[in-house]
């Protein structure tokens, strides 16, 4: 018999979490990448866009879904990019559906209020997601001392419990970062989720711990 796979959803999950210091350090690392992303977004919309990541955490898909449900988030739209490097995974930028529409309206200073995401909104969100995810991947690569090749972004929308669980175990750990947008005196928020193998997450946490110890 072979060893049990680490990522089996049915297996008792290994506890993995940041200490308070590690969490702060991780947020700081991601924020370095945000400066460049914000500059890109500002250039894209012709107005100042501020980006920040106030909070980074490691949690299970189940906990993430519970939190979204507590915040009253049901439908989400998300941009997903696959990445490959020392390990393979997916990076997602997730918005509550309403927030994603609002973001597009604010970015385009558009007065017409559509109730649904059409081609135009998809395109804009895919590009915004692309900028943010690439910036985060850059930060991740710096910490891990590796680089990641990422695919072009794809857009999805639907109920959070469906789109976030697709192809993922409920007990699977994810690296989760809250993202705040401030543009044209509006504040909007989304979240970036990295699904990584548990080993890689542990590796990421250990790398941050090493940086702190230095």
């Amino acid at each position, binding site marked *: 018999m072979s060893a049990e796979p680490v990522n089996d959803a049915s297996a008792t999950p290994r506890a993995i979490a940041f200490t308070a210091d590690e969490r702060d350090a991780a947020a700081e690392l991601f924020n370095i990448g945000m400066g460049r992303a914000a500059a890109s977004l500002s*250039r894209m919309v012709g107005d100042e866009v501020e980006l920040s990541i106030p909070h980074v955490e490691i949690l299970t898909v189940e906990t993430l879904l519970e939190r979204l449900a507590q915040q009253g988030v049901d439908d989400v739209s998300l941009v997903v990019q696959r990445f490959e490097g020392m390990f393979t995974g997916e990076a997602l930028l997730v918005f509550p559906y309403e927030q994603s529409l609002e973001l597009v309206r604010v970015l385009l200073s558009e007065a017409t209020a559509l109730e649904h995401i059409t081609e135009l909104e998809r*395109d*804009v969100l895919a590009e915004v997601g692309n900028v943010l995810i690439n910036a985060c991947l*850059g930060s991740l690569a710096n910490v891990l001392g590796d*680089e990641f090749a*990422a695919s072009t*972004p794809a857009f999805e929308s639907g109920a959070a419990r469906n789109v976030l669980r697709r192809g993922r175990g409920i007990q699977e750990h994810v690296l989760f970062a809250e993202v705040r947008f401030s543009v044209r005196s509006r504040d909007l928020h989304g979240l970036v989720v990295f699904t990584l193998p548990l080993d890689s997450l542990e590796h990421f946490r250990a790398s941050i711990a090493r940086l702190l110890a230095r």
Partner: protein
Amino acid sequence: MTPLVGRWDGLSDALDLGVVVLDSTRHVRLWNRWIADRSGITATAAIGRPFGDVFPGVDDSRLADVIDDAITRGTSGVLSHTLHRRALPLHTCDASRSPIDQALRVVPTRVDDGRGCVVQVLDVTATVHRERALRNLHAELRTALASAQTAERTKAAFLANMSHEIRTPMTAILGYGDLLREVVADRPEALDHLATILRNGEHLLGLINDVLDLSKMEADGIVLHMVDVDLPELLRDVVETLAQPARAKGLGIELELDPGMPTRVRTDPLRLRQILFNLVGNAVKFTARGEIRLDARCIDPSDHVGRTRTLSFAVRDTGIGLDPAGTEALFAPFAQADSSTARHFGGTGLGLTIARSLAQRLGGTVEAAARSDGTHGAEFVCTIAAEIAAEDPSVKTGRGEPREEADLCGRRVLVAEDGADNRRLLRAFLEGAGAVVSFAENGEEALERVRAETTAYDVIVLDMQMPVMSGYDAARRLRAEGVRTPLLALTAHALPEDRALCIDAGCDDYLAKPIRRSALVDTLARLVTTRH
């Protein structure tokens, strides 16, 4: 520097998208035919030069950042057409040389021994146009919808208002006409003219009531008043009322009550009567000879109190019949089978629309059919769902019983009414019945008169719509001051909910304008005798 060969060659020229390959130093290594045609720069001219030289202005753009990221960090990037409509200076190949709306993708790839990238350019001009057209259309539709909704509300308010404005003068026309009948009793020609005036006045009033009903129904504003009803009595009343105009045309009306029909049911008698009046009235209108039958039966009969049953009322005539293809159109507002029908037979064409809507509110519907027995004529079937009510022999509505000529001999009546015409009319009606009449022109004046001589009046008649102080306010004040004299409300609003408003304000009864002499005198006589 050499152009890329092998896997790229030939293939890229066959693609319907722009393909540019840059090496790790951002020099152009592949330039496909698509991009050459649309940029006006040949592959020979582009290959080997830095991308920023080929397209000056690209260097300080988001595209340059994305290319940088792809080459230095291995990430892929997209440029949406919305945020960068024309990232590169490209034009269509035709004579118009129109600018091309673009979406770009930049993906890292190995070139020689280093990492370069592929820039793909998609022509999304058509998509952009479609999207823009869709958005404009959406905005136009929103505006159109908003103005349609406003117009709808305005129309409903206008109809309700017009109905009120027309009913008030109708009181004077029909009332004075009624009075004149006695004056000209000995002049047959004048009586004949007067009858024409009154008949047309009644027709006009029916029309106004239909329009008001319809506008209320469209606004979903009809409130049902469900009570226990003696069904055979209601049906006999409908038939008896219409027997007179039927006889005038030489037609008979037969009422057939199925033995399984429950006697007492819970429904809105006013609305059920309105539906049946309409259907039987139509049958009378459209039948020249023969007879009209009203068959009432209970589908799935049961005498269990509280059970809901479907009641069916079929009206059959021997009239002009129906075109089977046109039966549904009959129920659309303002539609008669042919517009000349309205001129020939009269009517607004709203009756069936209203009857069906009312029947639907009562849990059923109205359907039309050519007569099922193949004979000439039409058949309209109204169904309603009604709960069977308990027998209550003590309740007698008294309808249909011969009534004595009521009289108000010596009764003191105070009338508060702001319209001079209506005051004169009411004076004529009331003095004709022997009453002693005093007048006030608004609620406040009425209050003053009552305060001055509290016990003197036997009954007070209040018009509800008056300046200075309305009838509603006057009724409330009188009751608040402990005045117990019977109050009769007069209003131009003819809906059941208006009655509730009057009763709530403290009135004992209510009459809708136009006021008929007999109804006024009967009601006042009843109010006076029950109170004294």
